[in-house]
């Protein structure tokens, strides 16, 4: 959780949490903690999608004449 992670990674974590909960062998305390983390990931994913505008970066070719 130190460096910003990609949308895909966040979504993968969310999916992993859901799968663990669905398997149904998580102790109660962990289940609640996992759920909270899942909600956090969901919110983070949604935030990434919403209100984003396409960023365009132009790489300049190295000095002409090559």
């Amino acid at each position, binding site marked *: 959780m130190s460096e910003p992670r*990609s*949308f*895909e990674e966040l*979504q993968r974590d*969310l*999916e992993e*949490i*859901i799968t663990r*909960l*669905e398997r*149904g062998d*998580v102790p*109660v305390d962990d*289940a*609640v903690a*996992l*759920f909270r983390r*899942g*909600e956090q990931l*969901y919110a983070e*994913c*949604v935030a*990434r*999608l919403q209100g*984003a*505008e*396409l*960023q*365009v*970066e*132009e*790489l300049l*070719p*190295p000095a002409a004449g*090559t």
Partner: protein
Amino acid sequence: MPKVEHLVYGDRKVFTVSAFNRGIGMHLGRLPALWVEGEVTELRRNDAWANVFLTLKDPKTNATLDVTIARRSYDRLELDLSEGETVHVAGRAEIYEQKGELGLRATTIERIGLGGHLLALEQLKRKLAAEGLFATERKRRLPRVPRAVGILTGADAAARGDLVATIGARFPATKVVIRETRVQGKGAASAIVSALAELAGHPEVDVVVLARGGGSFEDLLPFSDESVVRAVAASGVPIVSAVGHEQDTPLCDLAADARAATPTAAGALVVPHIGDLELALVASRRRLGLAVRAQLERDRGRLMRQGERLRDSPRLLLERRRATLDRSGARLQALSPLATLNRGYAIVRAGGGALRTAAEAHPGDRLQIQLAAGSLEALVGEVHG
């Protein structure tokens, strides 16, 4: 064969310039007819001239050779040649005697431009295929949600515009990194290779699209250049080739991880649709809620069952004991001699234990007979052993 005349100065044989040229010409005339390949430059044709003149150039060394062909022969070929095209010329070496210039007297000319390129391409394709560069198992999966999409493009506003518009419409939550480069003509191949390396080396770029609109066969050739094809195959990030139109298959298409017929199709390949992602997220959240609720239900259910078992345990224990006791009683009952007596049997004793044989008693002995209810005292009259 006419003789080449010479003058004589003492013991010196001397040729006039014309005689020299003619003599060389005669020697050249003995050489066999052959084919020469080169690029057409300086094509000069005039209805008033008997001959058509052109210069053939060796593209590798820039060496040149003058060619003449009878205008009528040339016109009959209906070649409509333009400069820069590669041709095969059949003819013999000749010398232009007036100038002493060597040339090729052509009988026919064949355009090989495309044919030659196609042949070379086919050979390169076979070689690279043999190395496994186009193998399906080499193809990498495109990232589902790239952090940034690299776009390698020429000064082709349409291809670039279509691609950026498609990406922006489908998935605005991303970034495009555009690197414009020369994509046709001399030096294009090496320009493409270095632009590709720059894009692939960009820290956020997870996939690169080669976006080059349609063009002539020659225009697209750099995308079949060996260095470009190898760079595509060896690229650190997956590559989508959107070069030319549907019917074109530059070799980079074969080496790329995916191929798109148009820039728009490429856009759809490299980013997901934001609506799909949002739907997937909503579905994920629902599953998350359901899963945690189900987990808690399961835990609650287990707890309740445990509670019931706890409460029931003393009663169960008692019942179990009682059942055991009942079974013991029944077994005891079955073994009781009283049960036998009830069926009409009797136990006969003679002072001590029960009698089993008549010989144990003697006439006059006193016997005790126990019945199911009460007992009798009796005397033995006779003994029958």
